[in-house]
């Protein structure tokens, strides 16, 4: 909390900037939902707003869509001011969480809606609708009513309805959260390839960090209305900026260590560290801790002995809880068979990532 990073994105994205959020704040009555948030979204990228419920991610999305007005700050898109436009004048389309398909219109009328109200020539519309439905593999259901479709099918129609308008930016508000696990995985894959194919900028909102990691070019992690970190999935995973990030994305061990004269000491663990002296919080991922055996291994590895307290087999991996002189560490190793008692473990000191909060 004390050294929370400012809600500013520290490095601009690669490529041209499409959308710029400048010092946005949003308050609902007494509650401050977004606090001085700034963010840039590159053209053609798949950016995910990740966070818990209440983190402000949906509010930010709605501000960009135009359903809410910022209390302070501005939003710019393509060099022009966006937040002063009503939603029906923005080149932004939304895929709603509950799909929001029009129940009194058929699937193809739903998809055609945006084209019709914008005055697209009537002769062009059928072809575009068919193409959009084909993109989401729903062309068979063109004349069906939404009430007859399953959740996954409705979701595809909602996607087609948004994409057919060729928006500059597509907003997706937790579109997969109502689907079951298998369908979800399938849709994730389809969304990703669709985005690649079309090159449209996607702004995706979710609370599921695995989903965010799988889909995004970059992840913007929100917490209590502020940006915790914005980076690519690999970057955010291997170099989390704060303990919150380290724990929200993936699992980790938090080690509070005293750094003195190049050595970090945390309980029974000591490893070389080139930081300045002081107390530092480190993040050490479970899969970075290996179980030592008699095979020759690099000597830079920091070793320690620990007693296995719990072992969970999850198919490809063992998840261990190891007691290292009072400190419980989570360790992840490839499938090994049942283990007992004390073992020797080790990790590369480079994997102990210092956190700034």
């Amino acid at each position, binding site marked *: 909390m004390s050294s929370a990073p400012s809600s500013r994105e520290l490095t601009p994205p690669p490529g041209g900037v499409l959308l710029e959020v400048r010092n946005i704040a949003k308050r609902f009555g007494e509650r401050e939902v977004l606090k001085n948030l700034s963010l840039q979204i590159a053209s053609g990228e798949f950016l995910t707003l990740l966070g818990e*419920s209440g983190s402000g991610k*949906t509010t930010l999305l709605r501000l960009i869509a135009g359903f809410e007005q910022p209390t302070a700050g501005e939003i710019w898109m393509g060099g022009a001011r966006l937040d002063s436009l009503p939603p029906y004048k923005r080149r932004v389309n939304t895929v709603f*969480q*509950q799909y929001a398909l029009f129940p009194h219109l058929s699937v193809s009328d739903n998809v055609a809606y945006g084209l019709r109200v914008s005055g697209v020539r009537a002769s062009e519309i059928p072809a575009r609708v068919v193409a959009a439905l084909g993109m989401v593999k729903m062309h068979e259901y063109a004349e069906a009513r939404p009430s007859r479709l399953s959740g996954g099918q409705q979701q595809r129609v909602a996607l087609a309805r948004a994409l057919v308008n060729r928006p500059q930016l597509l907003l997706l508000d*937790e579109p997969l959260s109502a689907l079951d696990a298998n369908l979800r995985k399938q849709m994730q894959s389809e969304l990703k390839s669709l985005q690649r194919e079309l090159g449209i900028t996607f702004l995706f909102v979710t609370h599921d960090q695995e989903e965010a990691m799988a889909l995004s070019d970059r992840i913007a992690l929100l917490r209590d209305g502020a940006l915790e970190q914005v980076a690519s999935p690999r970057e955010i995973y291997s170099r989390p900026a704060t303990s919150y990030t380290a724990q929200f994305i993936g699992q980790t061990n938090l080690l509070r260590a005293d750094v003195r004269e190049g050595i970090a000491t945390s309980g029974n663990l000591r490893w070389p560290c080139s930081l300045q002296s002081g107390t530092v919080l480190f993040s050490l991922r479970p899969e970075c801790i290996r179980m030592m055996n008699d095979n020759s291994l690099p000597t830079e590895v920091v070793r320690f002995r620990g007693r296995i307290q719990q072992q969970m087999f999850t198919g490809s991996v063992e998840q261990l809880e190891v007691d290292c002189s009072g400190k419980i560490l989570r360790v992840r190793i490839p499938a090994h068979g049942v283990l007992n008692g004390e073992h020797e473990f080790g990790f590369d000191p480079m994997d102990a990532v210092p956190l700034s909060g």
Partner: protein
Amino acid sequence: MGFPMNAAITKPRSPLLAAFSLFVFAFLYLPIVVLVVYSFNQTGVGGFPPRHFTFHWYRQLFADGPIWDSVLNSLLVAFGAVVLSLTLGLLAALALDRANFPGKSLFRRLVLLPLVLPGIITGLSLLMFVNRIGTPLSLLTVFLGHGTALISVATTELFAGLQKMDRSQEEASLDLGATPLQTFWRITLPNLKLSLIASGLLIFTLSMDEIAVTFFLVGRENTLPLEIWARLRRGITPEINAISTFIFAVSVILILIWYRIRTRSIGKEAQELIERH
């Protein structure tokens, strides 16, 4: 995160729409306001502006024996109608909810018919009925008319209440050893408490105000609306304004209570709806 279905959208205000709505409200309330104002007017029911403020007409009202007799009659009929309609309405709602029998959809339509049919139809058909069986017109026939017409109100409200009820509560009760009767008494009825009170209030108010059906079934004893009607034939005096104001005040209080009760039971439902998202 879901989206509450009834959150008001903060859109650019439409002053034209607001003004029109104000006009409609004015239209709805104007006659009543006039009525109330002129009930305090010395010089009669018309003309403009009202001249002398007085309680005279209210004093006359309170001393008016026949009016209060008719109020008593109305009360008797209303209470009777409440008891009858609630009882039969509850049974009808239960039957619609739980039983299947031949002619069920016909039954449902019949029960709801008096709600949508003009009162004269219901009134006349019952008149012919009591005439055939030789019953003289009296408060009893009025009571019959009100009870029959207002069952539909009770049935509708109680049926909605039953549908909202969590069925597994009754199953749990039976599972724990209670008989159907005990279950009905201890579980079903308490769950319907709010619906019962709400419909009871509504039936009471409607019965007190009922005139179309009553018109054909009334005997020598008048109910309040019929008494007022009789007075109207004789001539208009502000005393009628006074009694109307009185009726208005009491109706408002009853309806506001009814509304509170109803939104209490719906309030819970809305909460669940929002939570589910």
